[in-house]
């Protein structure tokens, strides 16, 4: 495994442009666009990464991405600091010097990268299943909440309606009399509202 990067780095840098579809970055970006791509078996991904042209630029980019990913798992500040430091390094030193350093450690990093990609896929699927699990038990609760009105609002509405209807009852009694069926209907509604209010107050008292 470690020999391949040596041979690859000695090769010319033309094939990176000739095979853009096999670039691992394209695979990952396509995978996020459609769910089916997430089921790409890992060996295929690894093969593609091996077949990928290993020009210095692509290697450094891949190495940078993998390092950044690992660092970000450790913590935001740590990863950001390391990324910033890496950027400064690349600006300061030449690419060849960096490549020499990388070639010695690239093999081990590649392996770690594979493991990382595997764990990433597993993590994403487990996360999605976790999300589903999180939401499913609460679905009934949320459905009920969607249909119900909040209790303080109900209380406000009922209190206000009670005041309005009590005043209207006086008008009814003066206009059509106490024994009219409309007056009695209104009286029954008022009593119903009062009962509901007293129930609520009793519950609050307990």
């Amino acid at each position, binding site marked *: 495994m470690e020999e391949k990067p040596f041979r690859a780095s000695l090769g010319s840098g033309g094939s990176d442009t000739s095979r853009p579809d096999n670039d691992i970055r394209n695979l990952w970006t396509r995978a996020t666009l459609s769910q089916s791509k997430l089921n790409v078996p890992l060996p295929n991904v690894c093969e593609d990464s091996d077949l990928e042209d290993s020009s210095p630029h692509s290697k450094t980019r891949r190495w940078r991405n993998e390092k950044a990913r690992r660092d970000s798992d450790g913590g935001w500040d740590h990863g950001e600091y390391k990324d910033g430091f890496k950027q400064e390094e690349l600006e300061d030193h030449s690419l060849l010097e960096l490549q020499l350093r990388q070639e010695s450690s690239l093999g081990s990093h590649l392996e770690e990268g594979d493991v990382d990609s595997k764990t990433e896929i597993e993590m994403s699927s487990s996360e999605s299943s976790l999300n589903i699990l999180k939401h499913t038990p609460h679905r009934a609760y949320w459905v009920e909440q969607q249909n119900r*009105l909040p209790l303080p*609002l109900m209380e406000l*509405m009922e209190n*206000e*309606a009670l005041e309005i209807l009590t*005043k*209207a009852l006086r*008008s009814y009694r003066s*206009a059509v009399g106490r024994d009219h069926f409309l007056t009695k209907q209104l009286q029954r509604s008022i009593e119903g509202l009062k009962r509901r209010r007293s129930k609520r107050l009793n519950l609050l008292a307990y």
Partner: protein
Amino acid sequence: MKLKQGSFLWYLYLDKLYCLLSVRNVKVLVEYFHLLDVHHNNTLNDVLFYHFLHHVTNWKRRQIMIVFNMLDWNAMGEIGFDQFYMLVCILLAQQNHLEEQFIFRHSRPVFELLDLEGELRIGADNFHMYNFLFNIKKQELKELYHDFDVTGDRRLNYKEFKLFTIFTMDKYQERQKAEKENEKKRKKEKKALLKKKTHQVNVSSKQSSFTNRSESRI
């Protein structure tokens, strides 16, 4: 017109662009309507309607009954939820100073409300009767009939009314812009004043410390 603070309607709000209630607000309003609908007809009669408006607004009896007659477009002596919803939107538009926007967005229903006789024309009397509802001032009414009565019959048809709503909407937007600019100016002036004050305070404190030192030397 002012809605009673802390009343149920006081907590509702219109969408500022379309001047309508959200679905959630409508749902709540339906519940409220059913609480008041004690006879289970899905309507409110004139007595219930009067007491409702008397409770939530500061309108007088005459104004309330004008509104009831306007909304009772079937002359049933009762108003249904559609009319109740329209009334609530008008109340909220007035409360939130969105009358121009409301009339612009809902020019057809407003025109039909104002057209009491169904002649497809609105006279100046109609506007006078309902100016407390849409907050149209006398001067604006004069301008309205002077500028927009294209046909010259001293009444506005729907197209003329629509032109009027577009014109008032433009005026409203210009007013909003001018108000925003004035606010910005005021903020800038305040900042400049604060800076001056702090600078003066610094200078005076420096001077006082200098005099204290010189006194101590003496």
